[in-house]
């Protein structure tokens, strides 16, 4: 079960490709088959094995503040698993 996840605002993304280089779990890729409104290939989360830990390193390097990071709350015992 994943410990965290990210949401990438792909309309803001300029496709600079910095976040895939710093992701320790290697779950961020540039979407070569998608173009956003500005004509860039945006970054995308591909995490079928739910390896994202919510470490927020991608958000720290992102120059365009596209990434929101979520992490599981240990306090909530009845937290449902990620959809």
């Amino acid at each position, binding site marked *: 079960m994943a410990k*965290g*996840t*990210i*949401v*990438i*605002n*792909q*309309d*803001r993304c*300029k*496709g*600079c*490709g*910095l976040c895939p*280089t*710093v992701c320790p779990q290697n779950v961020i890729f540039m*979407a070569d088959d*998608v173009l*956003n409104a*500005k004509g*860039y290939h*945006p970054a*995308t*989360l591909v*995490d079928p094995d739910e390896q994202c830990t*919510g470490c*927020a*390193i991608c*958000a*720290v*390097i*992102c*120059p*365009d*503040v596209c*990434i*929101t*990071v*979520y*992490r*599981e*709350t240990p306090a*909530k015992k009845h*937290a*449902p*698993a*990620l*959809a």
Partner: protein
Amino acid sequence: MLATLNAPISENSLQVVYEYPESLSPVVTHYCPGCTHGIAHRLLAEALDELGLREKTILVAPVGCSVFAYQYFETDGCEAAHGRAPAMATGLKRVQPDKTVVTYQGDGDLVSIGAAEILHAAARGENITTIFINNAIYGMTGGQMAPTTLPGQKTTSSPFGRNTTMTGNPIRMSELLANMDGSAYIVRRSLHDVKNIRKAKKAIITALKVQMAGLGFSMVELLSSCPTNWSIQPEKALEWIEDNMVPYFPLGDYKVRDEVNGL
């Protein structure tokens, strides 16, 4: 709509650990892909948020790539003539001493045409904070040689590399301003990796605290990348900072007054 491509999120189980800073306007910046101006903007916005200064901050924008900086922050802002941001900030701070006055300047603005203003603002010990973006090139005008361009670095106005015999040597501004008696906090940080970005944020917070405590002039120099005008990929540009700029512009604390450590 594109955001829905990501996995859906169950809000109950997850807490937000990182989101868009309140002090940053919800607009897309005009900066090139991979430009570290965006990182510097975000760090300043986060620092303003954490210190609760958003509604009492006046940002003085420079001329250069960051000329529209006043549009990107949810603070008051104004635009200074080229290089004159410290002069304008001096006036603003003296008239409204309860406000936080921040200038955001690049190397063409601060080291070249604005060298006199920043030197004298530091010499007078004006109680303002300067964020100095050093990317060793003129970005906005098309990649010409700046006063901080490294020896041998190719730019559009030095296509065979900077010739120091003819054009002199790069200016290390932090070392220079640290010698001024009026300066209280002068540090150089880099934006080339996550660790250094986090250090840069701490330095910006300290610089703002120095101003709030009224200790004198504070400046954070940030080594930044310019992938477009360096003509390299954003990732390689960050490596270029580490390999070439950091040896010439050593990171560190150049002036930290004793009172600053107590903040």
